[in-house]
């Protein structure tokens, strides 16, 4: 019987010829990523060794990545102290893939990893962040775990007792209409299968729309696969994956490129016609509360947010800049833009995008998770409404349980910034 893509990755990581769905296995880990919550993983790691007569050394310091992004620069003494402890741990353990609060190498973990070539096709990547699913865009089996689970990975170099997940095949065909794109596709899919429609499953993306999609777009759909409950979202690697790794990420070593078997067994096949989609909006307070934009046009917005691990890449900033160039953010609203990494920030600066955005009246924040989870900057006031290119709209998500968050694409966010209400971007920009 043929294997799906994730079965092949897991088999490889276990040194086996094949694995079946439901098998309990212990795959080796190629990369283990944490951000500020590495402070808890560190505490739990030390706890593991407290009662046994072994030296507390992580299994491979070159396979651990620590990236400060959730609260940068620190918003409180507590965060600064956590970051300080983690920085000391990184030094003691000799962890090489460490990205501190720096303009030359910092940013959001889920963009730092691809940009720096830390993720390769066919690898197993774990992260103490639910949006670790992002890295399926490069053909890795990448999934979120808790901090204690990470401590065990640091100790053993493998994930203990994983059940090989079943796979849902998502077949996407057709060309997007103007100003409709990957964000609209993934929002539509989440609405279609629900917020738990892929719980414990992998979403494997296929079809001509995916094949012609840039890695940036693939990162959007894999990033948000977790919002359908998926363990992972994966685009099997192709020429675009190789192009990205060689040209953007600077990877020079040999790549292991493979595809799912033609006779792989899928639990379900979901088909999407991309050409029939209009812009999608996730309405408060669940990500699967999806509406076509025409149902919510005119909704008043107090804060527009463009950025995050979902939509803070150069093409997203470019879209915002093109809409805003020579125009003004409506005085009835305010707009925050935060590029995902300092590399993107510098490129957007060089290309004049940030200037266009600032001239229009938007605020450009430093790269980091910032407003997305509302703990650091960009919190909402009571009864305020946000329209954001981020990934979650749960009650309280943007720092205030008395506020509302709508999710959208960068094009919708930028077009709406000009009017101050949710606006269909079809006729504007580009």
């Amino acid at each position: 019987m043929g294997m799906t893509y994730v079965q092949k990755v897991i088999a490889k990581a276990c040194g086996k010829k094949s694995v079946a769905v439901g098998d309990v296995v212990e795959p080796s880990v190629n990369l283990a990523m944490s951000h500020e919550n590495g402070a808890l993983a560190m505490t739990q790691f030390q706890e593991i060794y407290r009662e046994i007569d072994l030296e507390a050394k992580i299994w491979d310091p070159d396979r651990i990545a620590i990236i400060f992004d959730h609260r940068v620069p620190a918003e409180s003494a507590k965060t600064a102290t956590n970051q300080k402890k983690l920085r000391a741990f990184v030094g003691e353990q000799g962890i090489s893939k460490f990205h501190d609060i720096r303009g030359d190498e910092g940013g959001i973990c889920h963009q730092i990893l691809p940009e720096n070539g830390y993720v390769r096709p066919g690898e197993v990547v774990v992260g103490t962040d639910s949006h670790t699913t992002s890295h399926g865009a490069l053909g890795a089996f990448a999934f979120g775990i808790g901090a204690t689970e990470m401590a065990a990975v640091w100790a053993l170099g493998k994930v203990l007792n994983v059940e090989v997940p079943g796979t849902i095949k998502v077949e996407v065909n057709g060309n997007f209409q103007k100003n409709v794109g990957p964000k609209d596709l993934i929002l539509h899919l989440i609405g279609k299968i629900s917020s738990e429609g892929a719980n414990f499953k992998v979403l494997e993306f296929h079809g001509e729309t995916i094949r012609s999609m840039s890695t940036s777009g693939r990162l959007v759909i894999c990033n948000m696969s977790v919002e359908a409950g998926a363990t992972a979202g994966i685009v099997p690697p192709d020429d675009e994956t190789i192009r990205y790794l060689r040209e953007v990420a600077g990877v020079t070593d040999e790549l292991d490129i493979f595809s799912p078997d033609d006779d792989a067994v899928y639990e379900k096949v979901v088909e999407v016609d991309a050409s029939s989609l209009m812009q999608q909006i996730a309405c408060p307070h669940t990500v699967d509360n999806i509406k076509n934009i025409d149902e919510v046009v005119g909704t008043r917005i107090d804060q527009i947010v463009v950025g995050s691990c979902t939509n803070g890449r150069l093409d997203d900033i470019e879209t915002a800049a093109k809409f805003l160039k020579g125009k003004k953010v409506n005085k009835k609203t305010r707009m925050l833009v935060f590029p995902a990494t300092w590399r993107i920030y510098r490129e957007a600066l060089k290309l004049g995008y940030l200037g266009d955005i600032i001239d229009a009246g938007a605020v450009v924040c430093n790269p980091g998770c910032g407003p997305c989870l509302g703990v650091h900057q960009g919190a909402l006031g009571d009864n305020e409404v946000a329209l954001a290119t981020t990934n979650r709209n749960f009650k309280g998500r943007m720092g205030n349980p008395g506020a509302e968050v709508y999710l959208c694409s960068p094009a919708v966010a930028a077009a709406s910034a000009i009017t101050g209400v949710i606006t269909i971007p079809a006729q504007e920009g580009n």
Partner: protein
Amino acid sequence: MGKVVYKIGDDVSTDIIYPGRFMATVLPTETPQFAFADDKEFNAKLNNKEIPAGSFIAADKNFGCGSSREQAASCLKGWEVTIVAKHIARIFLQNSINLGLNVLICPDIDADMGDELEVSGDVLKNKTSGKEFKIAPLPAARQAIIDAGGLIAYTRTRLMADKS
């Protein structure tokens, strides 16, 4: 045996269980005070120690969806409550097992506030309504961790086994 002390619906996210603004607090000894912090009434009941250990929180589908933040499991573990839900999101479920928080997946659960529940093998009895519900098995892959008393203890065993 314990009573249902909190009843909540679908898609209770980790932002609801443990709001993001408290995420700089990480230690399991310190997280319980912020459990369900945005529901001031229930949070006060917890902090005033009005919720006895062994009480039940009853939820519907997709409990614990969203962020991987482990504080969402550790803050509830601290109060020794049991979660019973129709379905539980993957990362939260694994965190719960790793930390030893009692979680029951009970797809047909029907219980109201104040109902008395009792676990008997793979059956959850609602003593108040007289109804019984099947408890779905936890993922087979996690059984060894449950048996060891949590992931830290299990990892210690594995490290010592690798050494010898």
